[in-house]
């Protein structure tokens, strides 16, 4: 994969991630972790090579069928990417509304999840008024509200202390136990060591997989 006419940021990657598995994606800053995730959550197309997702060859799929695949993927972005003019409720409700769920179901599901992540009292707050940790919980809630088959997290612990980071990872582990495939990109080797699980290590745009 390359951006425009720049150098290849990922190359010679041949990898299969099993359904229901839990992987850490590690590597130094600039190793290509975010680019790797972008390819999986269909924000970028490979300049060459093939990607299969949920048994679909992405390159062979017509563009109109991609949204259905994207709805099966939850993404926690490094910078959260919350929509600032929308309330906490509306941010979390987005994946359900985009999928066309009835508004009463949206309200029920979102309220329940926000209560579960401890943000019931911030339901009408807008992201700029929330702390970093609260924003992160909103981002997580948005990523999991649609019960995705695949959950991707890009440096989810980057903006929180170790304790909060650990709690977050435990939450993702719970999701994994319920059958969701989880891939977490992090440069925090220490945190990855504490949790265990398989690792995909990126270095110079190439990978090496190691089992926990």
């Amino acid at each position, binding site marked *: 994969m390359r951006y425009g006419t720049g150098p290849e940021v990922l190359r010679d990657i041949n990898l299969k991630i099993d359904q229901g598995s839990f992987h850490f994606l590690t590597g130094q800053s600039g190793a290509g972790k975010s680019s790797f995730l972008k390819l999986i*959550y*269909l*924000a*970028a*197309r490979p300049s060459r090579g093939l990607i299969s997702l949920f048994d679909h060859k992405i390159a062979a799929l017509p*563009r*109109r069928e*991609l*949204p*259905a*695949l*994207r*709805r099966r993927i939850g*993404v926690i972005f490094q910078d959260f*990417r919350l*929509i600032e*003019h*929308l309330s906490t409720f*509306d941010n979390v409700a*987005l*994946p359900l*509304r*985009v*999928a066309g769920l009835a508004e009463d179901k949206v309200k029920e599901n979102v309220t329940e999840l926000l209560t579960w992540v401890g943000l019931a009292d911030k339901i009408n707050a807008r992201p700029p008024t929330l702390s970093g940790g609260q924003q992160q919980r909103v981002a997580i809630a*948005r990523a999991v509200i649609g019960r995705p088959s695949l959950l991707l997290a890009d440096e989810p612990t980057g903006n929180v202390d170790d304790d909060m980071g650990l709690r977050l990872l435990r939450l993702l582990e719970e999701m994994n136990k319920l059958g969701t495939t989880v891939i977490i990109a992090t440069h925090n080797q220490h945190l990855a060591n504490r949790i265990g699980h398989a690792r995909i290590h990126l270095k110079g745009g190439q990978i090496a997989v190691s089992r926990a």
Partner: protein
Amino acid sequence: MLRQRYDISFDSDGSVRFLPWLLALMVYLAALAIAGMLLLSGTLSDWNRGLAGVLTVELPPAPAGAAGSDPAPVLDLLRDTPGVLSAQPLSRDAIAKLVEPWLGSGFAVQDLALPRLIDLRVDPDHPPDLPELRAKLAGLMPEANIEEAHQRFDKLFDLAVSVELTALAIVILIAGCAIISTIFTARAGLAVHHDVIEILHLLGAHDAYITRQFGRQALLLALRGGIVGLGLAIVTLLGLGHASAAAGFLGEGVRLLPVVTLRPWHWAILVLLPFAAALIARVTARLTVARALARMP
């Protein structure tokens, strides 16, 4: 539909503030152009109706009693022709009145070799066969001529039709400007809201989910601007109507200002303009955004 929720914050987008004003101006100009076109079209149709079925038979001048000067056989022929409703010779005084604008009133009609005229009224739905009538007339009086009233006004009709077409071209041009304005506004919106659009896209939003929001926004802005433009146009047209009624006449039958009186169905067409502008803006915004989204992965 108007109360639907937006995921995209168009209020923060400065470029959308200009669209209603631009469209207000365009609807205003389009309304005036269309009103002018409708008035002209109405006048043309009145003329057409008035002139349909009116013909003039012109007989060569001849002193009374001269051989071949009797118009009676011509009148008989005309009156017996199917489709002719009436054939009425014009008196010398009536003919003198017709030439008065050119010759003045101080002349002796009998001294002039004026053609004799017959006013012919024919059934517009079942007119007589003119070539056949001309041939028969030539047999009676070779220099006689039938002139359709239409022919005298052909150039005026042509001019009026040209003005109508020009007004139509102006309306099309205005619609083009409205489309271009909407395209630029939608593109500016795409640039301003790129991050939100990308998030919606990554969350699995179909293109239609995003284009709908842009389309709805453009529709509301255009409708708002269109109503303002139409309101101003109505005030202008009523003002012109009032001014034309108050201006009076320059001379006999010659108005200082043209009559600006729209019929109810003319007003109905003008009232549709803001809705047409809104529809154009909605479709244009949706297509513009759809094209941009198609370039996303």
